């Protein structure tokens, strides 16, 4: 295709977008609605995965030092925890602090601990892991550190959280795939309608000597433009809705596991997914639909 021919074809795509306003608007609206659904699902999935991940990190692993361990030994255990890649955070408690916690747990019956020798208790580390699936591996690693007497891991809880995360991942993947297929189907049909409404125009262009490429280029560009505009529209609606949701629900601070993801991280991901989807489906859908009409 000559450069001038290509320029004419590009210019034709711009003119067609303006010349068929109803079809353009209908296509854009359909694509925007479908991509809005995709975006909502992406936002939901991101939040669900984050919450599941944070919930998994809540279940603590208790690490107990040897009885009457020296300061150096306790420092060694603490260093091992600091260096361990699977550790998210830990809280170190002295024997005196642990005794105080026992007293609080006993409440009115704490008198039984009067005169109790706190040196009979050990130092403890309440550890939160980044990934509950790594629980047993962490236990195996930390158990070998000198000065560690006992490691308590609530395996059923860890297994449940790990299983929960797997289900959330799988459910999200299936949901996005199904929604993607539905969106693809609906957007393709809309594009097909747009192309079909210009079937006569395409056949006239063929009679006058237009090559298949000359006919397709404007539709590819139009499809991509309509897809991109639909994606941006969907993103804009979702941006507004999500920020309103954050304000109106006034959920806990981001450090707790129930908090929704910040607007910036969700909006970027949604924009990326919607744009790629809109551009691809818009342009590829146009090409596939035009092929049926270029056989004159």
């Amino acid at each position, binding site marked *: *295709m*000559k450069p*001038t*021919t290509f320029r*004419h074809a590009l210019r*034709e795509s711009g003119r067609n977008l303006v*010349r*068929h306003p109803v079809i353009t608007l209908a296509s854009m609206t359909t694509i925007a609605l479908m991509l809005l659904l995709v975006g909502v699902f992406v936002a939901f999935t991101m939040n669900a995965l984050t919450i599941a991940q944070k919930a998994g990190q809540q279940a603590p692993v208790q690490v107990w030092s040897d009885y009457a361990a020296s300061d150096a030994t306790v420092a060694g255990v603490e260093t091992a925890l600091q260096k361990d890649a699977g550790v998210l955070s830990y809280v170190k408690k002295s024997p005196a602090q642990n005794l105080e916690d026992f007293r609080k747990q006993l409440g009115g019956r704490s008198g039984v601990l009067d005169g109790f020798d706190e040196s009979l208790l050990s130092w403890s580390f309440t550890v939160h892991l980044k990934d509950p699936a790594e629980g047993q591996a962490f236990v195996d690693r930390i158990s070998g550190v000198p000065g560690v007497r006992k490691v308590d891991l609530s395996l059923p809880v860890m297994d449940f959280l790990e299983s929960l995360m797997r289900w959330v991942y799988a459910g999200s993947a299936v949901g996005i795939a199904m929604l993607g297929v539905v969106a693809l189907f609906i957007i393709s049909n809309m594009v097909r309608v747009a192309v079909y409404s210009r079937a*006569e*125009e395409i056949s*006239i*262009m*063929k*009679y*006058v*000597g*237009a*090559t*298949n490429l*000359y006919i397709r280029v404007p539709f590819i560009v139009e499809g991509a433009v309509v897809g991109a505009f639909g994606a941006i529209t969907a993103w804009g609606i979702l941006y507004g809705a999500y920020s309103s949701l954050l304000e109106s629900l006034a959920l806990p601070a981001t450090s707790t596991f129930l908090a929704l993801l910040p607007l910036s991280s969700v909006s970027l991901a949604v924009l990326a997914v919607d744009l790629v989807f809109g551009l691809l489906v818009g342009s590829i859908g146009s090409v596939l639909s035009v092929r049926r009409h270029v056989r*004159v």
Partner: protein
Amino acid sequence: MIEFRGVGMTYPSGIEALKEIGFVVDPGEFLFVIGRSGSGKSTLVKLLTCEERPNRGNVLIDGYDISRIERRYVPYLRRNIGMIFQDFRLIETKSVYENVAFAMEIVGAPGKLIRRRVPIVLSTVGLKDKSDMRPSELSGGEQQRVAIARAMVNNPMLILADEPTGNLDPGNSESIMALLDSINQRGTTVIVCTHDSSVVDKMRRRVIELEAGRIVRDDRRSGYGTAPELPGETPAEQPEEPPFEEMAEEAERRAAQEKVDA
């Protein structure tokens, strides 16, 4: 030169549209192809534009067998053929100017050439003042003139008209045929498929009559009915440069004369 050599065409449904027809069209010739509905006229047009391929025989244009041409080269062949249809086939969403210009855009003509030539061609067909109008705002005759302008703007070697006056009244039919005649006078080969007997009788050019897919008559200078064959004239040679400026001047002179006569 266009040559049909033993061309036969049977559609997949079993209908035999053309039965081993053969004829030659010289460069610059004006030819009417007449016959009843179903005689094979439209099939002949489709074979020339490679919309269909013959089952038997060959269709040659300037010695090149177009019946075996690869699909990807068909658009380039069609750029040398100006098509005119009974239903005009203009793009409704484009203006008169744009309908003619896009035929040049398709072949990659530079914008400057398009801006220079399209107004001249529209003057030739008498529609320069209606450049910005849409086809729906024009009469049938005017729409067909736009179609003719689009057909001739790339200076094709052949103008192929399939029932060009089918949707027009006698007055408009006459002006359309006059336009085609003037294009032919400049050297372009013109083939008109029609069952409009009045225009055929008036113009008295070569007539090929089809009946049930066969050529039953080929008269050099004839009317719609059977007429004795007269010696043909040597067709005009095709000039090298597009004669649009001369045609536009002649059209303007004719329009001015009509105003004076009125």
